């Protein structure tokens, strides 16, 4: 199998890497995370100009028809730069849901605005009780003559403070745990009845707790049948997030190796000590294994079917354990500096730790795999 990047992917990687190097150094990123907005609107416009917002969408809607593999090339670079712009919430989650489940008119209108950089989205799915389950949804939507109204509580909605529209998963029929009866809705977060408690997350991104009190909502696509679209989108999102994790882990490994070459103790660089060399060798192996698992996950998830969710869970388990080892060793080998605010290592560590908790933690996915194996 040839895992080399093709011409287009190579140029996309070069272009993204150059942006990170020239315009997104660590200090710039730190200023952005401390700003009120939490990211740069100028960068968002640039992403639109560069075509990054159009990458995974069909050409029929003005997209570029990129594959999941193309997306992981970009996501890995975004991970290397710890990019905080809401690309994941808008393009990978919100945009993909619209493409998969929206009506023809919703797809063309919303995706066109998204691709132009005029629409940011957030996916309000998780609830305090649901623990990464897609079907354990209490938020409900009632239909009246005026349309649908949503009531419920959504937890840790990433990118919500900057979103122009929320894509909300709500129950229109059935009970908690049922696959049928789940629907997706578009909600304007500025309207009365939406209470948003926004906060910066531990890794410098923005999230929010959102409460809906009989809020007017527009149905996205067909009623009661959103489960497959949500599942497929979350599988894609796990692959994209894992690509970001690979970028983060490689940065942590390189920073640690470089540091161990120059930091001296007992008259020699600490990288000369065999015990530390072993640790770095372990970090390297974990990075490589995660990268291999990422390629496997990307190919399998893109193929769809039952195997897709299985592969996504396997990938998330690997990212969780490898990320933990690489992140913690990087901090250990750097010493106290490894968690200081002034050094990027601590920030990469926070991001890799947060990635483990997003879209279901390592333990949750491992339990899912065990349950599936027992049921088989």
């Amino acid at each position, binding site marked *: 199998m040839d895992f080399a990047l093709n011409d287009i992917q190579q*140029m996309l990687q*070069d*272009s993204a890497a150059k942006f990170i*190097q020239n315009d997104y150094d660590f200090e710039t990123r730190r200023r952005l995370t401390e700003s009120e907005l939490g990211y740069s609107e100028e960068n968002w416009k640039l992403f639109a100009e*560069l075509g990054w917002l159009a990458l995974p969408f069909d050409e029929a809607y003005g997209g570029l028809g990129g594959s999941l593999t193309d997306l992981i090339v970009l996501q890995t670079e975004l991970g290397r730069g710890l990019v905080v712009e809401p690309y994941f919430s808008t393009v990978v989650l919100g945009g993909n849901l619209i493409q998969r489940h929206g009506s023809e008119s919703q797809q063309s209108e919303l995706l066109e605005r998204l691709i132009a950089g005029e629409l940011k989205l957030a996916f309000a799915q998780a609830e305090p009780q649901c623990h990464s389950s897609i079907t354990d949804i209490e938020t409900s939507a009632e239909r009246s003559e005026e349309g649908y109204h949503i009531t419920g509580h959504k937890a840790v909605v990433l990118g919500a403070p900057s979103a122009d529209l929320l894509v909300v998963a709500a129950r229109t029929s059935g009970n908690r745990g049922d696959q049928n009866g789940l629907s997706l809705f578009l909600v304007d977060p500025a309207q009365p009845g939406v209470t948003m408690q926004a906060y910066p997350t531990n890794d410098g991104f923005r999230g929010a707790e959102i409460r809906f009190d009989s809020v007017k909502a527009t149905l996205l696509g067909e009623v009661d049948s959103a489960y497959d679209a949500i599942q497929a989108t979350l599988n894609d999102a796990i692959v994209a997030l894992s690509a970001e994790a690979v970028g983060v882990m490689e940065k942590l490994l390189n920073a640690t190796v470089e540091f161990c070459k120059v930091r001296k103790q007992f008259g020699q660089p600490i990288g000369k000590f065999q015990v530390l060399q072993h640790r770095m060798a372990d970090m390297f192996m974990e990075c490589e294994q995660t990268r291999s698992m990422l390629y496997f996950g990307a190919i399998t998830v893109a193929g769809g079917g039952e195997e897709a969710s299985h592969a996504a869970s396997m990938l998330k388990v690997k990212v969780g354990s490898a990320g933990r080892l690489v992140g913690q060793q990087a901090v250990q080998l750097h010493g106290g500096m490894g968690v200081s605010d002034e050094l990027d290592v601590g920030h990469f560590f926070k991001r890799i730790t947060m990635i483990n908790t997003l879209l279901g933690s390592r333990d949750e996915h491992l339990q899912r795999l065990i349950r599936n194996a027992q049921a088989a």
Partner: protein
Amino acid sequence: MKIVVCVKRVIDYNVKIRVKPDHSDVDLTNVKMAMNPFCEIAVEEAVRLKESGVATEVVAVTIGPKAAQEQLRTALALGADRAVHIDTSAEANERIESLTVAKLLAKVVEEEQPGLVILGKQAIDTDNNQTGQMLAALAGLPQGTFASEVKISGDEGDKKLQVTREIDGGLQTIELSLPAIVTTDLRLNEPRYAKLPDIMKAKKKPMDVKSPADLCIEVASKVTLLKVESPAERKGGIKVGSVDELVDKLKNEAKVIS
């Protein structure tokens, strides 16, 4: 007006160069390659001249192995209209020297008849800073080297090129008649990032492949590379206890003040 812009495939400027253990050359095994940064500036300037309506066509040219087509595709993604690749795969054992490059480019210039040729002032691998000047001599065209600003004025048929050059201690502005050769300095412009739609379109843009033999140029190295060495390692600094000690060291050890 047609612009020919020349690009070279070199080691990516972020890569830490390794010398082969026998010091015979730089080790290129598994090393990331990229477009020479000065050539990127040349491509950007050509594309800007096209966008401002001064130029009508931008042709990117490179000389090198088949892999050098990657750099031509990058130039096409940045806005060049078509590309010419002079494939030297058959001469893989020869070092392609500046004079050979200039001769090959002179043939391309003869065929294409451009109004302007833009090159990087030097490539970051060999730092020769020769090709632009040699090309100007071989093609019999005026040259504006180390350009930090390029302006084209005048009516069709009588266009003039103003080039501001970065020279020791200041700037020099010269006026050239067209066609002319320009080599770019670092501050001429800031190259753009390749846009994804343009990257995809670049795949479909035309690329001519020629060999040195097609252009009747013999590739034979006349300079032998004897030895390559890494720069001497920087010695660690020291802390001095007082101003007097500093002055003493500057005077007697470093000998930078008397």
